């Protein structure tokens, strides 16, 4: 609270006071009160008024500065009313009450939306489990009846379903992953087998190096993340996909590199953004701009780093970094 601004606010009360003083002086002169007495009365009145003003100013200053300091220090600004002590003067109490009421109403709304969101997410999870049953039946039917070409389309259906599931998971506040040591080679083999038909059809070869290490992550999420990267490589003209891991004392770095069409320098900074499709996406028409966005978001939740390097026409490399927090280790 600035003194200058405050004084400006108080200009009108002081004008009224000055008016009253002028009138008082007129009266005093009318009753022929000696000038000394009039001056003494004026000085006393002025002292009293200034004293009162200073007191009010200090009280307000303490309250509002406290308010502002609390606001400044809070990460979540809406928690402000929780931090305030109830003030002992009317004006402050009104502000305090207003803040509390609006905050309470907002919290109720948020809780309502959060509930709705959680309900929706729960429904999505349920729906995904439901739809996986006919997909599983169909997949077995394809196999039993030797209809390989349908299996490929079913795999695509399953991919889409997985995308929905992980999109729902990525946005929720709940922690529904489990961090434990996961073998990189196991996770990669899972996704490689899943994509095998398409990989072979496109004549893409796989090369792995040093995947014998384990990283701390959620196995299912990791397979999904690798699946997104694999999908991109297949979509964007790779002939070879090289996956290599490098172990450092404090982290493990996984490089997922393909020799596909690459990403132009101007697109590279935006590839992890939602709905960004870029030049490649426009050219292929198959991009949704969701894959890498989801990868980034899931990595963020799991605490993994993810970056991209690329050179147009040469290669694309996505680098995942897994931390080695001792706290995560399970016996």
């Amino acid at each position, binding site marked *: 609270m600035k003194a200058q601004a405050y004084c400006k606010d108080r200009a009108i009360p002081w004008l009224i006071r000055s008016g009253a003083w002028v009138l008082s002086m007129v009266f005093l002169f009318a009753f022929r009160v000696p000038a000394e007495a009039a001056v003494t009365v004026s000085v006393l009145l002025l002292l009293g008024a200034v004293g009162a003003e200073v007191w009010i100013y200090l009280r307000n200053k303490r309250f509002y500065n406290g308010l502002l300091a609390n606001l400044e220090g809070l990460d979540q600004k809406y928690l402000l009313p929780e931090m305030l002590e109830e003030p002992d003067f009317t004006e402050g109490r009104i502000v305090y009450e207003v803040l509390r009421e609006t905050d309470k109403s907002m919290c109720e709304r948020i809780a309502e939306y959060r509930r709705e969101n959680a309900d929706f997410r729960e429904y999505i999870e349920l729906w995904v489990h439901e739809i996986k049953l006919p997909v*599983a*039946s169909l997949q077995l039917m394809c196999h039993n009846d030797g209809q390989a070409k349908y299996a490929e389309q079913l795999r695509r259906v399953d991919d889409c379903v997985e995308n929905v599931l992980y999109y729902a998971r990525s946005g929720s506040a709940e922690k529904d*992953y489990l961090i434990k040591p996961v073998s990189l080679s196991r996770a990669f083999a899972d996704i490689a*087998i899943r994509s095998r038909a398409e990989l072979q059809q496109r004549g893409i070869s796989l090369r792995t190096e040093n995947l014998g290490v384990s990283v701390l992550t959620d196995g299912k999420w990791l397979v999904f993340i690798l699946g997104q990267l694999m999908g991109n490589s297949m979509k964007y003209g790779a002939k070879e996909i090289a996956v290599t891991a490098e172990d450092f004392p404090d982290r493990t770095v996984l490089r997922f590199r393909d020799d596909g069409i690459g990403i132009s320098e101007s697109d590279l900074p935006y590839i992890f953004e939602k709905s960004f499709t870029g030049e490649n996406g426009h050219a292929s028409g198959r991009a949704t701009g969701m894959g890498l966005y989801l990868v980034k978001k899931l990595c963020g939740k799991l605490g993994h780093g993810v970056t991209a390097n690329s050179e147009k026409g040469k290669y694309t490399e996505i680098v995942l970094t897994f931390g080695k927090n001792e706290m995560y280790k399970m016996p």
Partner: protein
Amino acid sequence: MKRILVIEDESALRDELCTLLRHAGHEPVAVTEWNGVLDQMINAAADLILLDINLPEVSGETLLEQFRKSAETPVIILTSRTAELDEVLSMSRGADDFITKPYNPTILLLRISAVLKRSKKTAAVQTYRGAEVSAVKGSIIRDGMEQILTKNEMIIFQLLLDRQGAIVTRDELMTALWDNDEFVSDSALSVNVSRLRAKLAELGLDDAVETRKKQGYVLK
């Protein structure tokens, strides 16, 4: 032939699972009555149990926990729940493997034979037409002659041997190889098969691996 109990309430899926198992040379037995599933599990005298988690009346997890108090029969959990936590919980309740739907049928069969092998504690050495096959050493010994197989050749031979007399498709061989982190191409598979043939011929096992056109291979 292995007796496999299938506990799955989705009828279409159950029927297809049974067909798949029958084609692979197993004897599937399906549970269709949802009262007293636990007793059926115990009385089925199965070599392996495929158990769904979402069942009417009772959850697969509870069943597994109760079943494990009295029996050692290997159990593979089949589920459409795809959270790591479900897997960890199932394994801690005594499941031998955990496979999420929809599953790759070949992978399912591979996992089944892996679990069966583990539970049988099969001798490290199998025999084939008078030859000793050691998967651990990757060697075949016959009449004092030894042939060392590469990892890929051993995986191929092992799968053919497990299903001796039945057709093993190229797709299945490929899946088995990829499942062991050997991401071979179609042509590399052919090369591996012919090298395996040559090595078997050296041991006097000519024409052991027969090609069935457009179907796969059979180990005679």
